[in-house]
């Protein structure tokens, strides 16, 4: 894909938090583009603004300034209802804690079915996705019957169903051991090779090494892209 037509793009993004000690500038003048069909990694130390960037990309937080475009649509100008519909249709999100990515009362297969239902697509793709994440035999398991790595893989399968324009993952390997982390990196790679556009915030070297594109943040600014 040409770099001039990225799946998502941030322009002059600024995010502040009000704290008792005063305003904290989480992101400052961030420009970044995330190409289609690639694994982009947003890296940086804790507090560098990785999570804030992902949250703004997901439309879960409005920036103080700047624009976030998804397929040419500026998310910062959308009303909440339209934003929610866009997020439902065009985004999949995976958090760092495996338990936060799944509803505890749904089985693995149902997590994917629900995601498909909310996205308004058929669940016919679910078996292939479960196969892609290597969990065909765990389709009937509840989250608490799965390991952390397995939970993250189910979360990726649920996030990826219906082929959303953008998959976002925040530190997806943070809670996993090395083997499970390696399995998950392989899963992410497989999804991207299958056509997904994935933006991952991580400081895990294995994830960074697997990425096609690296955006490095420090103190809320892009220091390398």
């Amino acid at each position: 894909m040409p770099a001039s037509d990225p799946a998502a793009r941030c322009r002059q993004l600024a995010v502040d938090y009000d704290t008792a000690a005063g305003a904290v500038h989480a992101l400052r003048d961030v420009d970044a583009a995330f190409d289609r069909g690639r694994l982009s990694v947003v890296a940086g130390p804790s507090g560098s603004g990785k999570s804030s960037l992902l949250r703004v990309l997901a439309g879960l937080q409005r920036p103080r300034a700047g624009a976030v475009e998804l397929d040419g649509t500026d998310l910062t100008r959308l009303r909440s209802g339209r934003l929610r519909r866009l997020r439902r249709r065009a985004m999949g999100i995976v958090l760092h804690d495996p338990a936060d990515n799944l509803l505890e009362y749904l089985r693995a297969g149902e997590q994917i079915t629900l995601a498909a239902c909310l996205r308004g697509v058929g669940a016919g793709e679910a078996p292939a996705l479960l196969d892609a994440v290597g969990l065909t035999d765990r389709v009937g398991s509840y989250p608490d019957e799965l390991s952390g790595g397995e939970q993250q893989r189910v979360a990726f399968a649920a996030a990826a169903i219906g082929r959303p324009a953008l998959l976002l993952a925040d530190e997806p390997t943070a809670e996993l051991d090395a083997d499970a982390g390696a399995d998950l990196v392989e899963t992410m790679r497989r999804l991207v090779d299958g056509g997904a556009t994935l933006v991952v915030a991580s400081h895990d070297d294995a994830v960074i090494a697997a990425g096609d594109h690296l955006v490095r943040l420090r103190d809320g600014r892009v220091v390398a892209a």
Partner: protein
Amino acid sequence: MSQGADVTRVDVLGLLFPLLFLVAAVAVAMRLLAAALGPLRTASRTWPTALYLAIRRVARYRVAVIGLVAAAAIAAGVLGYAVTLNRSLDATLDAKAKTFIGSDTAVRLSPDQRIPPELSARATEVAVYQRAWVDAGRREDVIVHGIDPSTFERAAFWDSSFSDASLDELLDRLAAPPRDGRVPAVVVGADLPTTAEVGIIAAGTRRFTIDRVADAQAFPGMKRGNPTLYVAASALDDLDLPRPVTEAWIRGDRGDSLAALAAAGTEFREGRRVDEVVDQASFLTVSWTFGFMQSLGIAAGVLVLGGIAVYLDARRRGRLLGYAFARRMGLSPRVHRRALLLELTASVVVGCWLGLGIGLGGARLAYGRIDPVPGFQPDPLLRPAVAVVVGLATTALVVAGLAAVLARRRTDRDDPVEVLRAGI
């Protein structure tokens, strides 16, 4: 019901059976509910999202939910059962007393006294012949009541359990003129052939033949142990009978009726009163027993409310994550709220309604065994506590709705953005 020397006591079996029935029926219902969750889960794949989520939540937390359903069912069942039986007992006692008396108030009029015009719309005169016999192969003592079919219905107490025929129909039959000299009669408490000879003893015996036009289980003014015949008073006019005892049966408040009689200058004597017919104190044990059961039901209901609070608190993190999930996945808060309401409805409302149904079924099985005065008619009456049942069923809906709203507000207060920030 058994009766000791002084105090009527509850038949323990009669009391325990419906309770055991309630517990057993709830247990069976819970098994069926648990068994139905699997098929429901399968069937709901294409159902609306809120229902899809609610069924899966219930299935996932089945032990807690079924426990809540069972607790709600038992609380509502005990309450519905006890209130219904208490109400039935009160209605039965009242009906027995009024059946014995004939109406709300019965007074014996002095000779030549009539019912004053101001009471005529709700009163009737009854001629009572205490000394009489009927010959049905052998002579049997009876009481003969000569009634006025045209005014009887406006004053006399009547319950549909008294006879297969309606009171209207019976009165029509009594009002028919004698055929071949046979006086139409309704027979209560005696097994008579179609026609029988009756004698009224008063300075000699006046004989006439009755034509049995109907049998009744009970009839207003009947006396325990005495077969009673009801005929139209006008049908006895030609028999040259001595003046009978004349009673006035009056419907409505007793105090008002007596005051009206006194104001009209009517001479009368009140022979028996409703509250004297049955010794209410004798039934305090029974009443207290069911009152205690009502209290138990209410206490169990309070425990169920506590159970709901615990259940919601235990699910708090799940709800928060569900809400966060809603934000991320685009699941609307409305769907999330509906799913919560459906989940609570499935536990509290289903439990309550199920319990009420079983409780009423148990009461229906038991009420016949709880007869405060077995010798008096009518047999025990069933009076479902409709207001309580409807009130409880509505309360269950309101509780489920309120619990869902409160849980939802608490989730809102917990600031999902903070939850998200903790996660993303």
